């Protein structure tokens, strides 16, 4: 096995993993406040990317104006979801709320391609395609930047959770009724979480959209993100970071080492196997909080 290739794959895997982790972090953010897995996270990424494309290509804004504006709009949109839909689901069974987000996912997958065109759209961040070489080691510029941005945002959200607001968010996720009873504005906490999460989704949507183009298939990022969030432990942002890197690395190396042997795309299977094994030994993910059950 070629060491340089392995190194290339490893570096690549780590950074791609960070990019996945960013979407997963959005899922964690929402889970931490409302105990639900947001199945519309991928669709939010798609929506964010669409908004950027609309602003940039449709309205002719420079990309560096369009992105912050889209992020702001998406924050509002995330908060609006809470106001319109989730508010009425407080205290209802979690699984039903998850189903609601599946409905939202379907809705978004209809609205954006429906109104703004289903064809793939270009999203050009102006990152040149020319490769970077460190000696013989090839580095993918777009992925380095994407991974870097993701890492920065994830670290920021870790800081955010170490504040008093973080305690309040955790209280809300623990017990919404009790939170209400001591004056926590549960709705607002959830709205902020959704807003932030939509912001993160938008960033990921832009990063991925720059490579693959913008269309409905961005919403498929959900599955990978969910897997990473759960591997990390659903309510741990640090967990997401670690899990993202693990999955990214494993997938990247699997494609390099296993694929040629098996003759098939082993990426998802390897990731699945890792998740399955981890859950066997750590039923709450790598860093997730355990389930407290006092007998």
């Amino acid at each position, binding site marked *: 096995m070629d060491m340089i290739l392995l190194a290339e794959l490893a570096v690549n895997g780590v950074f791609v993993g960070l990019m996945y982790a960013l979407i997963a972090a959005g899922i964690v953010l929402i889970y931490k406040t409302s105990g639900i897995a947001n199945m519309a996270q991928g669709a939010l990424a798609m929506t964010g990317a669409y908004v950027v494309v609309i602003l940039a290509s449709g309205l002719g804004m420079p990309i560096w104006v369009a992105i912050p504006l889209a992020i702001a709009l998406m924050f509002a949109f995330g908060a609006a979801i809470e106001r319109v839909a989730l508010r009425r689901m407080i205290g209802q069974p979690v699984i*039903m709320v998850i189903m609601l987000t599946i409905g939202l996912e379907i809705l978004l997958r209809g609205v954006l391609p429906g109104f703004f065109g289903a064809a793939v759209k270009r999203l050009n961040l102006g990152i040149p395609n020319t490769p970077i070489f460190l000696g013989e080691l090839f580095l993918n510029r777009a992925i380095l930047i994407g991974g870097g941005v993701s890492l920065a945002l994830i670290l920021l959200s870790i800081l955010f959770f170490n504040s008093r607001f973080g305690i309040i968010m955790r209280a809300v996720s623990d017990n919404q009724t009790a939170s209400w009873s001591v004056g926590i504005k549960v709705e607002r906490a959830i709205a902020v979480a959704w807003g932030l999460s939509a912001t993160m989704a938008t960033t990921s949507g832009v990063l991925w959209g720059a490579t693959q183009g913008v269309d409905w298939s961005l919403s498929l990022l959900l599955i990978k993100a969910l897997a990473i969030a759960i591997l990390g432990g659903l309510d741990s942002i640090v967990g997401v970071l670690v899990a993202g890197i693990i999955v990214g690395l494993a997938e990247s190396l699997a494609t390099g080492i296993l694929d040629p042997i098996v003759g098939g795309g082993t990426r998802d299977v390897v990731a699945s196997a890792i998740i399955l094994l981890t859950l066997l030994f750590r039923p709450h993910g790598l860093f997730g909080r355990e389930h407290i059950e006092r007998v």
Partner: protein
Amino acid sequence: MFFRKAGISFTRYQDERQLWRLPADRWTIAVIFLLLLAAPFLIDRLYVISYLLPLIIWSMAAMGLNLLMGGAGQIHLGYGAVIGIGAYASVHSMRAGVPFELALIIGGVAAAAVGIIFGAAALRVKGLYLAMATLAMQYIVDFVIVQFPAISGGSQAALSVPNVTFFGIPVQGDRAPYYVALAICTVLTVFMLNVRRTSFGRALAAVREKDYAASIIGVDPFRYKLLAFWVSSFIGGMMGAVLAVCYYRTISPDQFHLDLSIQLVAMVIVGGLGSVLGVFLGVGLILFAPIILNQLISWGADQFGLAIPMDLRAHLPLMLYGALIMGFLLVEPLGLAKIYNNIRNYFLVWPFRHAR
């Protein structure tokens, strides 16, 4: 009003334990069942073949999943794979000459055997973590089916179902598959209805609600969770065989992908966890809302000559479908079955507003 019942008086426990205590309910069920029996002679074959038949088959799957989700409280995101295992196992055995009746069982057992391996592994984890573990199962099974042409049926990855008979009746044409599916579905429905009033179902529910409390009553939580996995996977596997024989006739790996799993989970949840009626309602909504909305939209577009762009026209049903799911859950977060119950309760106490 006709629903109304003022004070029930049963003199035997047996009567009180009937599946439907109200005569009105019993009549409704009987009429619906007779209508289903007569359907192929009453309505256009299109509706039998592409509405009633899938409704029945998907309901079987959703019931199997509901036993696990609603009955034992375990989320399963790999049920599509379970069905796939059943379908492939049974079709391969039928191609090898095994009769359909036996192939059904083989499909069930194969699915249950694989299902229970993952189940045993997955049972250490709860809730969404379990969802993930079963999702992993989905991917792994998918991978195996696709990577082994011996399973998937060569490079064309299509496996056709031979002509078979079910207790002497050839399962061909439009009607026979419908009746075969209806018969199996009826048996399954009876099973599901009975689950709630037998010790088996109660033990499952106990484990679902509070496994530690169940254990001090003598219910082994692990065993019952596994049992739930076993039975539910068995049903899924059997349904896979029915799906292959009565509906698809050619099976290919993509029929059993994650999409199917998610679709089934959606059916169970939207219908209402643990409710048998809810299963049928949920399947109806999830399976047919897209089709019907599509037809409504194109009908509307043609009628009123609306010049809506193709993209919009194609995606409008999707939007409405998503909105419909959200809408129903916002109106009644416990699912369609609960909506039905609310309406029914309203009439049960009518003309009064409150039960007490």
